[in-house]
């Protein structure tokens, strides 16, 4: 198959391996080694996208990751199709399917192009000025319209079927970029004995060396060096972008593992995130050629000169038949000569400078090229492809030059992104007309073009020196290799000329459609800060992050402000260098592996009983156990009545447990908790309240004294880690005089709560060595003994207000004990109940739940727990704060009960409480818990109410979606206020 723009020989593509692919539904043929861009150019296709805002036809500008226009969606299906990939980085493979974006119905005919005609109304910041009236227009007209227009590409709809890997790795020297600087740095470092990793975003290592002709000295050096690096054990990572650089040489790399393969091994991850900690980093990121700014500089066929050279040399394709080279730098001449030698008809070199270097002009003329110094480009013509350019010569006369390729050479901008991300300082370099890294002097070594060294021999030397220095700083002996000398010519750069007074639209940022006029407008409207201009005009804010546009934009801003570029400054470089997929960042942490799931030993049993679970911190807890077609409310009502009338069993294993041991354990707990503990007898328990130092409740739980020097502390389910951390903190730092040891025993003990008037008769036959009679084992006691034959701790405690026991047994034996309890309990009509019933039962009793009644601003007295505070103790965590005046304010919110006028109405948790129906009413407090109590036959609610204890009997309102609900303030204990039922 003949492919029109493929040259007969040369390039690194494999002419023996044709590859078929499709673009926008049309079949094409490329060669192995092609990118999608080079393969399309070989087929004469330049129109590949429509611009974001004006929907202007766009073609390839570049050949690498800086490409602003050629964004495509690659892959078929709803799960794997990936939007916004740069066609210049997509490697073709057999069967590849790609399509263009941001056009409807087709690239050649795009309805959105109407925006281009409306361009005068779509200037920078138009959306701040336009969508103002009428007020209702925003929601109904503007927002839906803008949402449809905003964003590039379509995200895949189905879940990502691929897997992604993550690796941590250490090395002496990480080299970012495998061009001449990076490879010579890697070689020098490796020869000094360093462990070296070298990564590069391209499919092949070599960078600009890949553009050299086969057989040249540079090409030979590349081949030799790659062999040497492999022999030295250097880890070489192609297709790997260093996208983020963080403190202390922590660098994030994204490796594309399988995207270039037609039939990847399913065992391979699609992408791999490398998190590298390098002793030393050599940044050899190279430089990016700058476009020139002239009217119509965005037509398909207008591209960077160096990129055109890359297409010809690396891929063996001619980007056009007849080229006009527009340059403001000496480099344009080299590209022009190389292209002419490669068979492109270069009609002229239009130099924007009045005085090009004589030697270059002579060389170009010797190669048969026409040199036009002191030119200005007045515009380009052509609709879907450039057809010609209007060039005004130094003599003042204009001529239309026919061409299908306009090549821009505006000098090269060092890629300082990673250096700057890591807070490295930049300074303006007049020679390159761009910012370069200040001398780092530390563990980061910019080398080669990314620090403004452009001439290839100098780049090779610079890289070798950086590599040797990095190895030395990594505490390795240096043996800086003999620096290689190779022949090449590349003259110094010049500042790009800009002609902002030209008529027509000249684009600065191709991807976000920002023109010179937008930047001028922003400055005229008073935007001075470079960061403000960036956001107002969106220059540099597209997915390419302004790789080709930033320096040009800075130049225009400087001109408009009559300032120098260094005074304008530069915007902040942020990661990622190029877009990174969510899959790579998430790695394995998705689905069931996103967060650990904690299950109690009783989980399988609860599942078998049809329990409905809820998440409580990381735990799965049984919420209720529906029978038949019961709703939650029906199930909870049955469970509540079952507990109060007979007996219920509840899995409380998720309670946090901390074993506090040591001769000073009681003293320690006295200092930590508000309660006194020294006089707590062995075998007794106490309800403990834990404050933060600011006096607010952090946690609560029952604490049992197992021995003189041993306490069994329980915490809330969610609070266990922070309570243990806080105890450790005080023990290690403030109370380090105390001999106390802490152990988390949350998962060691399973906890089976048996609650209800018939609880004792259920458990009595199951325990050995413990007298459970009321006299021997009163409420708030703990005993060690055997339960169903295994060692356990039996607590007599109640969170329901009923006679209650909590069986602490080793987790491994928990199901056996549970089965025994269940078997005996069924004879007594036992119900299994879940967290929802637990909540209702405790609310009926006015027991608080930390985090529900409390919110980090609540003192013990606020929730009626003032009795627990050991006021006689000289000190405990938070005591001093409780003495502050604001903590005793009678208007503080206090825990109360609320009864609704209509017994069936259940308030909404979080609802506000107000005094009356007036318009300016203020909130007096809020509802913290609200349930329908089946035992009482009416709803109950707990609330935090300003001055609540002095408001008993008051009638207040709770605004709800259906209207105000009248409530009466009552004491927060609804059931068994005398507290007699715990006695059984």
């Amino acid at each position, binding site marked *: 198959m003949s492919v029109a723009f493929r040259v007969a020989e040369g390039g690194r593509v494999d002419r023996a391996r044709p590859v078929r692919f499709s673009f926008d539904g049309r079949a094409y043929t490329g060669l192995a080694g092609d990118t999608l861009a080079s393969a399309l150019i070989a087929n004469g296709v330049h129109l590949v996208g429509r611009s974001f805002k004006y929907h202007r036809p766009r073609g390839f500008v570049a050949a690498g990751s800086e490409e602003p226009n050629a964004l495509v969606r690659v892959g078929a299906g709803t799960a794997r199709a990936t939007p916004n990939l740069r066609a210049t980085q997509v490697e073709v493979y057999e069967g590849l399917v790609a399509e263009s974006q941001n056009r409807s119905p087709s690239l050649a005919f795009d309805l959105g192009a109407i925006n281009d005609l409306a361009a005068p109304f779509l200037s920078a910041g138009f959306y701040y000025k336009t969508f103002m009236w009428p007020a209702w227009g925003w929601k109904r007209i503007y927002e839906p319209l803008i949402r449809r227009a905003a964003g590039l590409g379509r995200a895949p709809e189905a879940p990502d079927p691929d897997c992604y890997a993550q690796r*941590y790795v250490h090395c002496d020297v990480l080299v970012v970029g495998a061009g001449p600087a990076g490879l010579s740095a890697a070689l020098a470092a490796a020869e000094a004995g360093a462990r070296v990793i070298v990564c590069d975003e391209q499919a092949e290592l070599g960078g600009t060396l890949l553009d050299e002709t086969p057989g040249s000295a540079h090409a030979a050096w590349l081949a030799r060096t790659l062999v040497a690096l492999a022999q030295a054990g250097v880890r070489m990572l192609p297709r790997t972008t260093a996208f983020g650089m*963080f*403190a*202390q040489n*922590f660098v994030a790399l994204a490796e594309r593992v399988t995207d270039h393969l037609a039939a990847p091994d399913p065992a391979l991850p699609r992408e791999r995130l490398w*998190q590298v*900690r390098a002793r030393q980093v050599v940044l050899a990121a190279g430089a990016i050629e700058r476009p020139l700014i002239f009217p119509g500089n965005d037509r398909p066929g207008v591209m960077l000169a160096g990129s055109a050279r890359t297409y010809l040399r690396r891929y063996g394709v001619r980007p056009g038949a007849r080229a006009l080279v527009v340059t403001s730098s000496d480099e344009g001449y080299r590209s022009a000569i190389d292209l002419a030698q490669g068979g492109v008809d270069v009609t002229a070199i239009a130099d924007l400078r009045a005085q090009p270097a004589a030697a270059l002009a002579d060389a170009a003329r010797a190669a048969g090229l026409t040199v036009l110094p002191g030119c200005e480009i007045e515009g380009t013509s052509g609709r879907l492809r450039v057809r010609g350019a209007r060039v005004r010569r130094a003599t003042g006369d204009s001529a239309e030059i026919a061409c299908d390729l306009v090549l821009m050479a505006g000098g090269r901008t060092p890629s300082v992104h990673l250096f700057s991300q890591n*807070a490295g300082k930049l300074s303006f370099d007049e020679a390159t007309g761009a910012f370069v890294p200040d001398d780092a002097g530390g563990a980061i070594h910019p080398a080669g073009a990314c620090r403004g060294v452009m001439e290839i021999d100098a780049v090779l030397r610079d890289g070798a020196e950086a590599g040797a220095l990095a190895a030395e700083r990594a505490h390795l002996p240096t043996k800086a290799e003999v620096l290689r000398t190779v022949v090449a010519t590349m003259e110094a750069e010049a500042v790009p000329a800009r002609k902002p007074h030209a008529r027509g639209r000249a684009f600065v940022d191709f991807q976000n459609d920002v023109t010179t006029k937008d930047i001028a407008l922003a400055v005229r409207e008073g935007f001075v800060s470079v960061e403000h201009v960036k956001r107002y005009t969106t220059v540099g804010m597209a997915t390419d992050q302004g790789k080709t546009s930033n320096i040009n934009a800075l130049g225009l801003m400087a001109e408009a402000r009559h300032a120098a570029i260094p005074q304008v400054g530069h915007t902040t470089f942020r990661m990622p260098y190029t877009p990174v997929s969510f899959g790579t960042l998430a790695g394995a942490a998705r689905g069931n592996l996103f967060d650990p799931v904690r299950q109690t030993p009783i989980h399988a049993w609860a599942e078998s009983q049809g329990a409905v679970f809820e998440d409580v911190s990381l735990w799965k807890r049984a919420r209720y156990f529906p029978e038949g077609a019961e709703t939650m409310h029906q199930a909870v009502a049955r469970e509540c009545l079952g507990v109060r009338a007979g007996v219920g069993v509840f899995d409380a294993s998720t309670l946090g447990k901390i074993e506090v041991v040591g001769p000073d354990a009681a003293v320690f707990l006295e200092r930590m908790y508000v309660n006194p503990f020294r006089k707590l007898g062995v075998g007794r328990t106490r309800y403990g309240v834990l404050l933060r*130092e*600011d006096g607010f409740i952090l946690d609560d739980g029952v604490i049992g004294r197992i021995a003189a020097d041993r306490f069994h502390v329980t915490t809330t389910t969610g609070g266990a880690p922070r309570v243990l*951390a806080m105890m*450790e*903190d005080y023990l*290690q*730092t*403030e109370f*380090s005089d105390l001999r106390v040891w802490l152990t988390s025993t949350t998962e060691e003990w399973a906890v089976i709560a048996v609650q209800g008037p018939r609880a004792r008769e259920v458990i009595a036959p199951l325990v050995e060595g413990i007298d459970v009679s009321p006299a021997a084992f009163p409420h708030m006691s703990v005993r060690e003994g055997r339960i169903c034959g295994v060692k356990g701790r039996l607590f007599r405690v109640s969170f329901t207000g009923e006679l209650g026991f909590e069986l602490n047994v080793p987790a491994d034996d928990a199901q056996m004990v549970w089965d025994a309890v269940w078997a005996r309990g069924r004879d007594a009509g036992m119900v299994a109940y879940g967290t929802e019933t637990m909540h209702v039962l405790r609310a009926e009793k006015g027991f608080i739940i930390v985090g529900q009644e409390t919110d980090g601003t609540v003192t013990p007295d606020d929730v009626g727990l003032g009795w627990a505070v050991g006021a006689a103790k*000289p*000190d405990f965590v938070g*005591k*001093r*704060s409780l*003495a*502050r*005046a604001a903590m005793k304010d009678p208007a503080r919110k206090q825990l109360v009960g609320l009864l609704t006028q209509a017994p069936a109405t259940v308030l909404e948790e979080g609802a506000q409480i107000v005094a009356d129906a007036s318009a300016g009413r203020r909130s007096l407090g809020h509802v913290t818990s609200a349930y329908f109590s089946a035992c009482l036959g009416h709803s109950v609610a707990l609330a935090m109410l300003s001055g609540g204890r002095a408001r008993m009997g008051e009638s207040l309102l709770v605004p709800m979606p259906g209207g105000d609900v009248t409530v009466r303030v009552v004491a927060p204990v609804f059931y068994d206020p005398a507290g007699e039922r715990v006695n059984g």
Partner: protein
Amino acid sequence: MLLIPCPYCGPRPELEFAYGGEGGIARPADPAALDDDAWGAFLYHRSNPRGMHVERWRHVHGCGRFFNARRDTVTDLFACSWKVGEAAP
């Protein structure tokens, strides 16, 4: 990710640690002796410097111990770390 020098275990990645706030703020031996302003300063006033900052870290997923460190809040580089009870270097 920061590289944090645990004085017990050596340099380890940040994800093994929990931050413990500004260091060198001792809990008053007798809080009751402080007036409200002094107690409030202990509770809430922190230096928040631009530059060297003494702070507490806990090697929570390692040895579990608290220690002190000096970090430059501009560069994020740690100058040193030391054990609880030791004098700052």
